[in-house]
C-alpha cells in the first residue's frame, strides 16, 4: 500500500512564517538600526573600555562563584532526605520568578549600609559594610544564579543511576573515589553549559547594575548605553555600545547552545538517593551546614522584604495603583504574545522536522536568537528606529511588552516544543491511521499534551515581564510607571518603607499571576 504523503497544513506554515517574520523584525531590525546608526568614527572611550572589561569580569566571577557554591548545595540535596526538602527546592525556584528590584531591596536590607549584617557588626564593635559596586553586583548575581545552577546540577545528580551509588558502596569507594568516578564526569557534562548560561544572564542583567553598580569602577555596558541614551542623548555611541554588547552575548549564546545544557526550569526533581559514601558524621554535618547556609542566604532577603513591607501596606503611595495596572497589562500582553509566537514557531518547527531537518533547526535557532540580544540592546535599537518617526517615550508601555515577549520567547519555545514533538511521536501515527481531522486531533492529542507547559510558560513569561526593569527605564517618561519603576524611584528617594510595601504588592501580583497560569495548566490533568 502506498503511503499517502501528509498534507502540509497551510495554517501552520502561514502562522509560523508570520511569527518568524515578526521575530526577525523584532530582533534583526533593531540590530540593523544599531549597525547603521553606530558611530564607528568615534572610538570607544576609556570609560567605555572599562565598562566592557567590568561587564566581562563581573559575569565571569559571578558564574564561577555561583557554580562553586551550587555544587555542594546540589550534592547535599541529592544525598539527604529530610523534612523541608521540598520547601527548600521551592525556595531554589523562587529567585528566578522574583522581580530583580525586589531581590535587590531584600539584599540591601540584609547586606546594605543600614542592613541587618551592618547593624550586627556595629553592635559588636565593627564597622558598617557597603555593598555598592562589584560586591553588590556579585551578591545579587549569586543570589539569582546559585539556585538556578543548583537545580541544574541536581538534575545531573539524579541522572546518575542508583546502581552506581550501590556499586560504589559495595566496592568500598571512598568519597574522593566517588567524586572522581561518578560525580565529576557528570559535572563535566553540565558545568560548561551552566557557566555560559550564568555568564549570559549576568551580562544582560541591567537592573542589578542600575541599582547596585554605577560609578567609574562598576559600570556595565548596558549601564553605559543607558547613560548615553538618557543623559547624553548620544545615539551613535549608544548604538556602538549596543553592538559590542550584542557581540559578546552572541558569542556566548552560540557556545552555550552547542554545550546544549538542558535548562529545565519546570522542575521534576526526583527524591534523594542514598549515598553510602556520605554516611560519615563529618559529611552529614557538612551537608547540614551547606543547606542551612543557602537557606539563610536565599531566605533572609525574602523575610526582610516582608518585615519592612507589611507595616506600611496600609498607606501605599497612590502611584502604586496606576503602575500596577500598567504592569499587569504589560505582563499579560507580553505573555500572550510570547506564547502565541512560541506556539506558531513550534508548530512549524515540528512540521518541518520530518521534511527538512536543517530548515527546522534554523527556525529553532531563530527562536533562540533573542537569548543573545539582551532586552536592552533590542530596546536601544527600537529607540533608534522609532525616534525619527514618533516619540519613543509615548510608546513606553507597548514597547516594553513587545521586547519582553521577544526575550521570554526562548523559554516559552523550549517549554512548548518538546511537548508538541512528543505528541507527534506518541500519537502522530495513531492519529494519521485513524484519519483524525485537525480539530479532533488538537482536542484529543495535542491539547492534553501541551496544556501543562502552556500554563507554565505563560505564567513564567508573565512573571518575568512583570518584574522587568530594563526597557522601561529607557523609554518611560516621568509620568508613566510600572511597579518595578515605582519601587526603584522610591528606593532612590530613600523612601525605604514605601519601597518595601510596593515591593510586596509587586511580588504578590507576580507570584499570583504565575500561580494562576501554572495551576490552570494542571487543572484536571491526570498525573
Amino acid at each position, binding site marked *: 500500500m502506498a503511503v499517502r504523503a501528509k498534507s502540509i497544513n497551510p495554517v501552520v506554515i502561514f502562522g509560523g512564517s508570520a511569527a518568524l517574520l515578526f521575530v526577525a523584525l523584532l530582533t534583526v531590525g533593531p540590530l540593523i538600526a544599531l549597525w547603521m546608526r553606530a558611530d564607528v568614527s568615534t572610538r570607544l572611550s576609556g570609560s567605555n573600555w572599562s565598562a566592557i572589561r567590568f561587564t566581562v569580569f563581573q559575569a565571569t566571577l559571578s558564574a564561577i562563584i555561583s557554580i562553586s557554591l551550587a555544587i555542594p548545595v546540589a550534592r547535599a540535596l541529592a544525598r539527604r532526605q529530610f523534612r523541608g526538602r521540598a520547601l527548600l527546592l521551592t525556595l531554589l525556584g523562587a529567585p528566578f520568578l522574583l522581580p530583580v528590584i525586589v531581590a535587590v531591596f531584600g539584599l540591601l536590607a540584609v547586606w546594605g549600609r543600614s542592613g541587618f549584617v551592618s547593624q550586627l557588626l556595629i553592635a559588636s564593635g565593627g564597622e558598617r559594610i557597603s555593598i555598592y559596586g562589584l560586591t553588590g553586583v556579585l551578591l545579587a548575581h549569586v543570589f539569582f544564579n546559585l539556585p538556578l545552577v543548583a537545580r541544574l546540577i541536581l538534575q545531573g545528580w539524579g541522572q546518575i*543511576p542508583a546502581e*552506581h551509588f*550501590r556499586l560504589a558502596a*559495595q*566496592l568500598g569507594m571512598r568519597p574522593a573515589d566517588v567524586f572522581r568516578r*561518578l560525580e565529576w*564526569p557528570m559535572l563535566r557534562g553540565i558545568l560548561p553549559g551552566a557557566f555560559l548560561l550564568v555568564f549570559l544572564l549576568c551580562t544582560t542583567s541591567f537592573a542589578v547594575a542600575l541599582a547596585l553598580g554605577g560609578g567609574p569602577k562598576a559600570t556595565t555596558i548596558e549601564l553605559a548605553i543607558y547613560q548615553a541614551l538618557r543623559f547624553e542623548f548620544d545615539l551613535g555611541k549608544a548604538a556602538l555600545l549596543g553592538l559590542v554588547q550584542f557581540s559578546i552575548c552572541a558569542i556566548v549564546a552560540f557556545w552555550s547552545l552547542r554545550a546544549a545544557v538542558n535548562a529545565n526550569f519546570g522542575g521534576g526533581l526526583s527524591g534523594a538517593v542514598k549515598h*553510602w559514601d556520605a*554516611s560519615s558524621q563529618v559529611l552529614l554535618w557538612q551537608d547540614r551546614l551547606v543547606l542551612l547556609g543557602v537557606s539563610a542566604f536565599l531566605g533572609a532577603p525574602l523575610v526582610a522584604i516582608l518585615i519592612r513591607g507589611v507595616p506600611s501596606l496600609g498607606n501605599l503611595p497612590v502611584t502604586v495603583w496606576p503602575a500596577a495596572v500598567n504592569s499587569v497589562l504589560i505582563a499579560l500582553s507580553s505573555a500572550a504574545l510570547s506564547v502565541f509566537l512560541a506556539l506558531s514557531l513550534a508548530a512549524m518547527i515540528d512540521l518541518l522536522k520530518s521534511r527538512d531537518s536543517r530548515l527546522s533547526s534554523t527556525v529553532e535557532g531563530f527562536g533562540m536568537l533573542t537569548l543573545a540580544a539582551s532586552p536592552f540592546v533590542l530596546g536601544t535599537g527600537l529607540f533608534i528606529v522609532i525616534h525619527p518617526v514618533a516619540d519613543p517615550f509615548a510608546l513606553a508601555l507597548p514597547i516594553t511588552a513587545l521586547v519582553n515577549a521577544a526575550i521570554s520567547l526562548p523559554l516559552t519555545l523550549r517549554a512548548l516544543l518538546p511537548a508538541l514533538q512528543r505528541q507527534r511521536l506518541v500519537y502522530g501515527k495513531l492519529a494519521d491511521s485513524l484519519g483524525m481531522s485537525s480539530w479532533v486531533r488538537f482536542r484529543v492529542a495535542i491539547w492534553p499534551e501541551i496544556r501543562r507547559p502552556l500554563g507554565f510558560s505563560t505564567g513564567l513569561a508573565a512573571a518575568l515581564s512583570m518584574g522587568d526593569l530594563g526597557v522601561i527605564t529607557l523609554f518611560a517618561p516621568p509620568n508613566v510607571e510600572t511597579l518595578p519603576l515605582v519601587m526603584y524611584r522610591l528606593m532612590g528617594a530613600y523612601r525605604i518603607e514605601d519601597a518595601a510595601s510596593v515591593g510586596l504588592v509587586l511580588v504578590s501580583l507576580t507570584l499570583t499571576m504565575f500561580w494562576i497560569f501554572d495551576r490552570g495548566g494542571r487543572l484536571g490533568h491526570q498525573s
Partner: protein
Amino acid sequence: MDISLNKFLVAQKGFSLAADWTISDGITAIIGPSGGGKSTLLLAIAGFVEVSSGELLFDDRNMTDSAPEDRPVTLLFQENNLFPHLTVFQNTALGVRADLKLSKADTERVTETLESVGLANMNDRHPSELSGGQRQRVALARAVLRDRPVLMLDEPFAALGPALRHEMLDLVARIQQQQSSTVLLVTHNPDDAMRIAERTVLVADGVAAESMPTANLLDNPPATLIEYLGNKKGPE
C-alpha cells in the same frame, strides 16, 4: 557460606517481605511474580535496603546492620553495572582495588580474568562499545576478582537472547564451581532455574518461602506459582 534469615522482615510503604530460612553453598534460583520482592530480598542481603526486624547471618556472623562493603557479598544488577567513562579494564580492576592503584601482579590478574570470561583484547574499550552480554561478562569478571563467598544476580541476563543467556548461565555455574560460592540468581524464567539451580526460592505475596529442590517445585507448583507461570502443560 550459609546465609540465614531469622524472622527477617523488610517493611516499606505498602510493601513487606518476610523470610525465615537458611541457604547454603550452590546455586539457588529466586522466582516469582514481578513486584513480589525478589529484588528487595537481594538488596536487603547486600545492605542497600534497611531490615525492619529479624536477623541476617553469614555463616554465624550477624551482619544485619553492616555496611555494604563489609558484607561477604557481590551483587550484580540487571543493568548499569559498569561506569560508562571507565574502560573495560578499569571497570574490572575496581574489583581488586576501589581506588584503582594496582600492582603489576594485579594488572596481570585482571587481564587473565577478563580472558577467562571470554573478553580477550577488550581492555581499552568503553562500556558503550560492548554488547549487553559483554557488559555482564565484565561485571562477572569483577565479581570473580572480588572473590566474595556470596554472589547474587538480579535478572542479569533478562535482556539477552536464549542462546546467549544459556551461555552466560553456564559461565555463572562455572564461576560457582571454581569459587565454591553461594549463588543467588533472580530470574523470571523457570528454564533458567532448571538449567543451573539445584534449589529454588519462591517469592510471592510478601513471603520468600524456604528453598526447595527446583525440579520438585516446578513439577508440583503451589497455587501462587501456577498463577505466575500459567498452566503450561495444558489439559491432558
